């Protein structure tokens, strides 16, 4: 009844995305702690995020964050909205569409520099 249907896949994806985001968070806390070692050390650490392979991993992170966010709202609606459980399948489809629609423009900005394109976000800071 549950296995193999949207309920199972949404649950599994939510868990995998959550664990992936947590792993990134722990790495991120360490790379930010390099601030305490001055500009040279910190910038060397951050430079890794500009590598193409890390940009590709960042795409996974962004997709994971978007999915986990939207599916989190779906879970809350199932819990608190009386009709939530009835529409969980429809809401899963909405979650997937929202994830893809939000992911694509963000992905462009993240990956464009790997192809030598400046999407206009590499100028002076702030």
């Amino acid at each position: 009844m549950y296995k193999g249907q949207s309920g199972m896949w949404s649950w599994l994806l939510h868990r995998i995305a959550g664990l992936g985001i947590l792993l990134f968070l722990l790495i991120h806390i360490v790379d930010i702690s390099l601030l305490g070692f001055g500009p040279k050390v910190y910038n060397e650490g951050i430079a890794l995020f500009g590598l193409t392979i890390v940009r590709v991993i960042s795409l996974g992170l962004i997709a994971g964050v978007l999915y986990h966010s939207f599916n989190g709202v779906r879970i809350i609606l199932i819990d608190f909205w009386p009709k939530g459980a009835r529409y969980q399948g429809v809401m899963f489809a909405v979650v997937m569409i929202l994830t893809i629609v939000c992911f694509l423009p963000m992905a462009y900005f993240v990956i464009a520099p790997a192809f030598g394109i400046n999407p206009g976000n590499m100028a002076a800071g702030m």
Partner: protein
Amino acid sequence: MRVATGYGSRPTSGGFETFSWYFFRISGIVLIFLVILHLLLNHVSTDVSCTSYQLVSIRYENPFWRLYDWLLLTLALLHGMNGLRIVVDDYVRTRGWRLTLQSAVGILTLVFFLLGTITLITFHPVVGSLGPNCIK
């Protein structure tokens, strides 16, 4: 035995698992806004290669961003580590391993919370050598 899943119908029994259930949902809603703005600021409006020491120094002159990042750190870490606790609960069936791993989750949470908090509080830019704007 009541197994913590973080899912399922609203718990009413009280106690830690009920608190955990509500914490996931409340911190989750707050995190959606905090994390998505954080991603837009550091991966979209500014490329990640430009989130340099210089940019952080400018940003952290304003205590608002330190507070913002500390809130992000605290909520994301507690939300994520609580999730990991439930994953351990779900898959580790041996008593000894369960206790060991749950303790590790607790210790890791504290260590990373302190590392992040200390970084945010003690950061003082090295004036005169902020480094480049963007890192190539």
